[in-house]
């Protein structure tokens, strides 16, 4: 039995047993007019026990002679579940049908949330306190312990005050992420808000056309966007450097030279920001257009009758009414720019420079977890990112607690 990972099989059995038991049993219970929730619980328990016991027996007894035993063992849960379904006695009371439907459809959802949402989340938090690598042999529970020792708060301490290369890379990536988000947000709003107002003011027939064009980059794959802009910013053959040369300026190695700065930010960062902004602005744009359409026309008319110019109407009527929408989109834009990865990974891969000028947190997480297999360290960084996102979301909640009405 050494060729088969017994632990994995035990997990398979348990999950299949739980799923089948908890989703089919309520239906049977319901048919017999009994409480389906009891059915779900009993089914879950019987399914898991039966799956583990009979799966193990099948594997143990048959595997040496017949390789199909591995597949057969997955059906172990049925050995006890079918008799259970058969033996549920009928009860005359009626009216459980709805509850049967609810519990048999919600059980898989709960199963998913437990196994694929709550469990990984807790695991991610636990990992942050261990020096974990999947290559090393660890203890019996999740491979933690032994060669993957518990390190307590050491990761966080290193992030905060450390001077090792890892710590410096993290601190640099955090700075870059914050810089990136802080530049993206105001630029994005400065482009999308006026543009949305302009599109809103043009002829009804032309609106969808403009909207469709501006939305093109949003649906383009971000890797495609990165490749296109990588060519435009290309040091020798790029469109931008050709233009610079045509105007008699010196071309710049946008994505390679760590020393060049544009308006105080590194040239590579500038290039990445342009590409990201170009891809992302259409999304906020259509949200603002939708919000503008919801503003009652009577309010704008009233202002216009009172002699306000279009600019004044926009500044003093439209903009205040858009405030909640602006708030929500700002937070969403900020959160998604904290999580930027695709464009930077393809265009610069965190470079240029040894401590990369465009290295961001998610890129660091990716490299540490899946290149260098330092998953504990990566999980700790992910946790910091999570706290950052949580802070922004809470701030938004706090700012939005008043309800606007118009």
């Amino acid at each position, binding site marked *: 039995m050494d060729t088969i990972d017994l632990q994995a099989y035990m997990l398979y059995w348990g999950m299949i047993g739980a799923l089948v038991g908890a989703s089919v049993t309520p239906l049977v219970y319901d048919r017999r007019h009994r409480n389906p929730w009891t059915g779900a619980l009993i089914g879950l328990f019987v399914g898991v026990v039966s799956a583990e016991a009979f799966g193990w027996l099948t594997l143990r007894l048959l595997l040496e002679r017949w390789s199909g035993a591995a597949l057969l063992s997955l059906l172990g849960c049925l050995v006890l579940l079918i008799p259970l379904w058969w033996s549920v006695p009928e009860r005359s009371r009626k009216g459980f049908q709805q509850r049967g439907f609810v519990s048999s459809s919600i059980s898989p959802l709960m199963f998913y949330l437990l196994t694929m949402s709550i469990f990984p989340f807790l695991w991610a938090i636990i990992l942050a306190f261990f020096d974990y690598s999947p290559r090393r042999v660890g203890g019996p529970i999740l491979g933690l312990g032994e060669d993957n020792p518990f390190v307590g708060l050491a990761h966080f301490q290193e992030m905060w005050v450390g001077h090792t290369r890892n710590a410096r890379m993290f601190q640099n990536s955090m700075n870059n992420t914050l810089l990136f988000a802080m530049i993206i947000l105001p630029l994005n709003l400065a482009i999308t808000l006026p543009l949305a107002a302009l599109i809103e003011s043009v002829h009804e027939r032309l609106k969808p056309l403009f909207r469709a*064009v501006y939305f093109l980059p949003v649906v383009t*794959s971000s*890797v495609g966007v990165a*490749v296109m802009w990588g060519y435009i910013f290309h040091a*020798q*053959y790029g469109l931008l450097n050709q233009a610079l040369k045509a105007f008699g300026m010196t071309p710049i190695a946008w994505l390679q030279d760590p020393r060049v700065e544009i308006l105080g930010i590194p040239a590579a960062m500038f290039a990445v920001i342009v590409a990201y902004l170009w891809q992302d602005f259409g999304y906020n744009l259509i949200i603002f257009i939708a919000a503008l359409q919801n503003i009652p026309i009577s309010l704008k008319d009233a202002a216009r009758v009172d002699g306000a110019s279009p600019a004044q109407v926009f500044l003093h009527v439209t903009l205040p009414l858009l405030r909640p929408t602006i708030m929500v989109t700002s937070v969403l834009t900020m959160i998604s720019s904290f999580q930027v990865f695709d464009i930077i990974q393809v265009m610069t891969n965190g470079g240029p420079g040894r401590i990369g000028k465009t290295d961001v947190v998610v890129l660091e997480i990716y490299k540490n977890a899946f290149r260098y297999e330092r998953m504990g360290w990566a999980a700790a960084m*992910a946790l910091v990112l999570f706290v950052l996102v949580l802070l922004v979301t809470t701030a938004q909640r706090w700012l939005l607690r008043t309800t606007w009405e118009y």
Partner: protein
Amino acid sequence: MTTTEIAQSREAAVARRKRLVRQIFSRSTVYTVLLIGCLVTVIPFVWTLLASFKTHEEIINPTHQTFFPRHFTTENYHTILTDPTLPLARFYFNSAFIAISNVILLSFTSSLWGFVFAKYNFRFKRLLFGYILATMMIPFQVTMIPSYLILLKFDLTNKLLGLVVLSWFDAFGIFLLRQFISSIPDELLDAARIDGATEWGIYWRVILPQLGPVLATYALMVFMWNWNAYLWPLIVLRDVNVRTLPIILTWYNNRHTSDLGLQMAASVLIVMPILLVYLSLQRYVVRGFTLSGFKG
């Protein structure tokens, strides 16, 4: 008509003309700004498309760069489509397989659970729904590492199935469809119950047909997310032949770093399908993304 009246009407006419001129002026500035915006949006696409038809010599020529190709050639496409190390059909299949499987799975589960949360009462409903909404706030990068380890445990990495089996839950989809199903009147369900329909029958025959346009929009969005997804497929699919299109694009470009024409042709081939889908179903897509503005 007295002289003062004539003067007044002339003044009015002048004012009207002035207003008209100003209006035309402001209209034309609006359209100019919008057109410049369109140009900025479209030029990278056009530049990429045109570059893919240029010869290698033309692209690397330092002195004579033109916007339009001087020697129009389809050689780049020919090279890519006949490259034996790049079975492009296979990668299209991979991307389509993952995207379509996820669309089918998520359309089913999101509408079912949206229906349950909209129309039924059960214990812990509010708690469960609150948790589902809260999961939208957890960045994917946090659960990414354990999710990968789970896939590893089940030997599902490097398999297309690995990108399908774990994705039958989408908090946003449940939320979106719950909102929509709440507006379907309860009387409709009761009528179906009186006619002897089971609850699954109601879901299948009453709710699903009503969901048409919303479900189409949602399905389209799921398709696009999956088609364009990069980070998660990059982690899970490490073998070359199971990869999806975006990963193949970077892989191919890293092997042909010096040949930009080839890179651009590859990006055109990979970006084009989704743009065509978008252009043909533009209204649904934009509406879907407008709805998703309330995500989070």
